């Protein structure tokens, strides 16, 4: 690629207009953005709006006073992190000028352009961002309801159940016990997450309970970064992990929490000392109640702006949105947030929407100093969201690297994973 002087100059001019002081029409494009949900999508949207669009009034509605991230929960399972290190408050975001309202959003009235709060108050908006995360489909696996999840934790929605519950069960498990996992079909939150979880549980068991085994029952025939995970498992935890895909009767259809037993599609009953059920999922309730979700329970959006295709002036971000080929990840939610905010600002000012370029990197820890990644750059047009051809993809496999380079690559990616976590959480909450 040769960059012409002209391209650089043109970019320079564009950037100059960005940084230029706002003049007489400073209030042109003013408006109220209300954001429901203070996770990766919502908190990133609030920060980006506050940093870049002083003419916007920004309100974040989040029922909890703290946010525990889903990413790095698996490191709590491994015993490498504690809950405090993955839990954050909203004080700094408030200090930046975001109005943070710790109430439940109970209803959205798109006609009146208002959000109703748990205390009965109404919050008016010009544009609404809904980033509600996921709800679990209780009962989709027969017998798996909220009560059963106390014995067989999901550990997939920190606001419903802290990962420390599953950690406590692992600590109490006898050496030689079987850790059983049920993993859902697509789409679900954090595609590589279950496999990082297998890895981190294996790391803990290898150290503390080396006679134990892991049986992963999967409703899919393949998974994210599969060759890299399986290379790593073979290298680090030989003989410990048995992964069974759907064609090998991996789909769990029923559980019996009292007996600590799961049942597969073809009727095999399997008992575990600790059982982790990651059930099928859907968009968070507020999005479904507001008519933002389709029959599948997820929210269709316009690829260039993440505005709902079903309700105008509402943007849906993150895990709740249908954004394939982008994964349901925190990083994806964060870049969707920035694009949505920029689109909202442009729309309020009567300007055309900025070009849509989205980005994702998901690191996974496989073991100590052993990280792997998947990367994607995506573009949204009026019709489609597509991954840029020739870019992105997963880390190189073991066989393609020299032994020295392999160790260094895995070590660096584990290190960069920590860097991502630090930067991402600092951007939202620091």
């Amino acid at each position, binding site marked *: 690629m040769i960059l012409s002087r002209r391209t650089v100059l043109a970019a320079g001019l564009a950037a100059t207009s960005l940084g230029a002081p706002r003049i007489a029409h400073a209030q042109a494009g003013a408006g109220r953005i209300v954001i429901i949900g203070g996770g990766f999508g919502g908190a990133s949207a609030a920060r980006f709006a506050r940093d870049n669009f002083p003419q916007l009034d920004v309100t974040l509605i989040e029922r909890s006073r703290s946010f525990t991230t889903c990413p790095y929960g698996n490191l709590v399972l491994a015993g490498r992190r504690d809950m405090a290190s993955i839990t954050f408050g909203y004080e700094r975001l408030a200090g930046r000028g975001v109005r943070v309202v710790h109430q439940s959003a109970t209803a959205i009235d798109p006609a009146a352009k208002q959000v109703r709060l748990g205390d009965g108050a109404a919050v008016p908006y010009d544009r609404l961002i809904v980033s509600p995360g996921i709800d679990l489909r209780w009962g989709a696996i027969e017998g798996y309801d909220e009560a059963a999840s106390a014995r067989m934790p999901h550990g997939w929605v920190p606001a419903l159940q802290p990962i420390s519950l599953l950690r406590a069960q692992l600590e109490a498990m006898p050496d030689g016990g079987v850790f059983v996992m049920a993993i859902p079909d697509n789409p679900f939150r954090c595609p590589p997450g279950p496999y990082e979880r297998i890895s981190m549980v294996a790391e803990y068991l290898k150290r503390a309970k080396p006679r134990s085994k892991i049986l992963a029952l999967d409703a899919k025939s393949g998974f994210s970064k599969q060759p890299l995970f399986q290379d790593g498992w073979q290298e680090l935890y030989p003989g410990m992990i048995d992964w069974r895909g759907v064609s090998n009767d991996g789909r769990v259809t029923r559980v019996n929490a009292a007996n600590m037993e799961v049942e597969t599609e073809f009727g095999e009953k399997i008992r575990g000392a600790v059982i982790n059920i990651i059930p099928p999922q859907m968009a968070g309730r507020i999005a479904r109640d507001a008519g933002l979700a389709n029959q599948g329970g997820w929210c269709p959006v316009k690829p260039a702006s993440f505005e709902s295709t079903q309700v105008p002036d509402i943007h849906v971000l993150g895990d709740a949105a249908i954004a394939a080929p982008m994964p349901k990840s925190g990083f994806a939610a964060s870049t969707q947030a920035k694009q949505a905010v920029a689109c909202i600002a442009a729309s309020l000012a009567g300007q055309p929407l900025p070009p849509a370029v989205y980005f994702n990197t998901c690191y996974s820890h496989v073991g100590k100093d052993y990280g792997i990644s998947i990367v994607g750059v995506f573009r949204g047009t009026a019709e489609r969201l597509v991954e*840029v051809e*020739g870019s992105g993809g997963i880390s190189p496999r073991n066989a393609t690297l020299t032994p020295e380079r392999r160790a260094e690559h895995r070590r660096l990616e584990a290190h960069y994973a920590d860097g991502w976590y630090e930067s991402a959480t600092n951007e939202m909450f620091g």
Partner: protein
Amino acid sequence: MPAWAQASNGTLLAGACAGCHGVTGQGGQGVPSIRQTQNIAEFVSTMQAFRANQREATVMGRISRGYTEAEIAALAVFYARAQ
């Protein structure tokens, strides 16, 4: 309000970089700072080297190949201004 649509927008594109390199590109926790890239030409040539697999990388080769010449130029200007 600045016209965000008129060209490849450095601020918006840099939102992706911020995920690992920090809001101002400051780096940290082992992630290199990209503010240390002192000028536009250096930023561009570094990205070109990543694209061409001429610079050893973990993720940056895979990332850099997703962006156009104009986008890399816009990012270079953004980080040059962020000194």
